[in-house]
């Protein structure tokens, strides 16, 4: 995907520099602000694709910062980082105007996947389409029909939602926790490989007997659906 401009507002300099470095290595542009006020000033620049904001910041607390931005009609997608990680904390963060929430400590792959999904949301023309298409695979969200090469494939309702989410973010890495959050609406760590088993079941239905395989495992990160032929 095209490079994103990301602003990281985080007071832990070491953690922030690690993030900046890692994001640059993945081909994105990343800036860093070390406190809430500086972060607020810079976040007013609407050309950022995503803001990554720590909840507890010196000078201006993360939630107030988001509230201030939203009041200024700056709707850059925000990913909240928090060391608290309680159920209530997530609710508070999203209510304050955040778009996604990631408890600390996090895996970089998780953060990257979420940031990319958020950045995509900002792009024009990413509205709610009724037909998702990945290569030969077509998912009609209105009639709940799935076809590959014109041949209908029947799915369980949950499998349909799983595929729908994957196809909505086609070409992007989607992590296991993102799937659990968006398909099952649970935010805990499933501990075991429950999601993997769901994926392999789905894969058996959409990829078995077809070439090329569309649903791919991204090692150490999650899954991605992509038209491999292109």
């Amino acid at each position: 995907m095209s490079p994103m401009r990301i602003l990281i507002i985080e007071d832990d300099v070491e953690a922030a520099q690690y993030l900046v470095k890692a994001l640059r290595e993945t081909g994105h542009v990343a800036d860093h602000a070390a406190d809430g006020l500086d972060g607020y000033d810079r976040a007013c620049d609407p050309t950022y694709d995503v803001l990554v904001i720590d909840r507890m910041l010196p000078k201006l607390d993360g939630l107030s910062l988001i509230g201030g931005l939203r009041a200024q009609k700056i709707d850059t997608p925000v990913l909240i980082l928090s060391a608290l990680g309680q159920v209530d904390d997530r609710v508070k963060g999203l209510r304050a105007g955040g778009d996604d929430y990631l408890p600390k400590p996090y895996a970089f792959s998780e953060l990257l996947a979420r940031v990319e999904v958020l950045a995509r949301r900002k792009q024009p023309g990413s509205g709610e389409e009724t037909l998702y298409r990945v290569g030969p695979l077509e998912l009609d969200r209105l009639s709940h029909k799935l076809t590959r090469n014109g041949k209908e494939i029947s799915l369980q309702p949950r499998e349909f939602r799983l595929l729908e989410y994957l196809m909505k973010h086609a070409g992007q890495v989607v992590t296991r926790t993102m799937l659990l959050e968006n398909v099952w609406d649970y935010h805990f760590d499933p501990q075991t490989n429950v999601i993997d088993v769901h994926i392999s079941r789905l894969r058996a239905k959409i990829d078995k007997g077809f070439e090329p395989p569309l649903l791919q495992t991204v090692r150490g990160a999650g899954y991605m659906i992509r038209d491999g032929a292109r």
Partner: protein
Amino acid sequence: MTALGKLFRTTVFKISLAYLVLFAIGAGLVLARVGWNVKDLIDEQIAQTVDADITGLAEQYAEGGIRQLVEVIDRRTRQPGAGLYLVTTHAGEPIAGNIIGLPPGVLDQTGLVETNYQLAGEPVAKHRALARIFALPGGFRLVVGHDTEEGERLRHILGGTLVTSLIWLTVIGTLGGLLVARRVLARVDAINANAQAIAAGDLTNRLPLAGTGDELDRLAQNLNAMLARMSELMIGVKEVSDNIAHDLKTPLTRLRNGAEQALNFAATPEDYRAALEKMIEESDNLIRLFNALLMIARAEAGSELDGISDFDAALVARDVGELYEPLAEQEGVGLSVTAEPGLYLRGSRELIGQALANLVDNALKHGRLESPVAGVAALSAQIVPAQNVPGEVALAVHRRGEMIEISVADHGPGIAAKDRARVLERFVRLEASRSRPGSGLGLSLAAAVAHLHHGTLRIEDNVPGLRVVLALPASAAQPLALPSAQAVIHAGEAA
């Protein structure tokens, strides 16, 4: 502060003192009023007597002139206890009567006069009288009076009574106040002594009760209940921190060992990569553990939940069942969900879902019946993969009285009856589950969630196997019951 000084400073003593002052003022007002009325009454009586006398004497004068008047007065003054009489000439020369002197000017006054007077044979005018001066035709003046000593004496008696009664009142009131204060102070001192001992760290100490059920007893009872809750929390915090120390040090040790090992023995970049990946995995486990422990600690502290809602327990059970169904199938374990619809819970759907997921996860992991073959294999000390007989894990939602029970049952080895009580006793875990990696907190977490929702977690025998029951209070605001057809999903079998 001396003991007496302390007594004087007690609230009880101050209150009794205040009452004493109020009572004394009240008594003084009443007695003063009585004294006043008595004086008025006596004065009025004197005035009436004097007026009657004057009328009589004026008639005598009219009848027989000054001579008859003098005779009558002489006769009267000789009788004992007589009134006071004086007849003078126009110039004020006494002619008759038992008064020999009046202060100058008195004779010129009219009406009722209060004045000093001098009796015959006395050197000075030291008595007080109430008298009326009456001018007789012919220039003579008639003074008829009455001594006021009697009234004065009465007032003196009343005044004396007032003073003595006030003195007694003060003495008795003060003593009584001190006695009551001492009694209350003794009890408050006992409570204070115990409170100080508690503040010094002895949380097992309790405030003494007198057994009278009075307000001090009730206060002590409530404070004791508060202390009981506090020490319960303290014990909880201590146990949780002990558990945290144990649970976090184990994976930390593994993490450290892994790093050390890689530093010392890794030769190739692949070795390093493997070691680092292992370390990330270990730290993820550590984070998971830490989150679960935080949750448990929070539940133990009894803090209130945010973001609660009413939701159908069957829906959560089915969601979780459906989440684990492919995994169960892969493991060769049947997973069934039996849920009565329309049983509403109030609480955190997220946390209850997580607890249930943990229980199902445990059941899938541990809920297998080990075949006798596995036992033989273990005896022969060979590393043979244990051959497991597929078990059946059953998730069920039922209503039982005021509670909604969500149960997860398996046919695994279960938990021995002697350990069952212990496993629920404040997050104690059996050594076996403690040392098994990646799990062990599931039950504790479910118990914490139950606790947070004012419910309980029960462990029962599934004969054979284990049944864990999450009993949660039904939502008070129960939405209209849906048609109560039992919806049964048999997952795993269907596929």
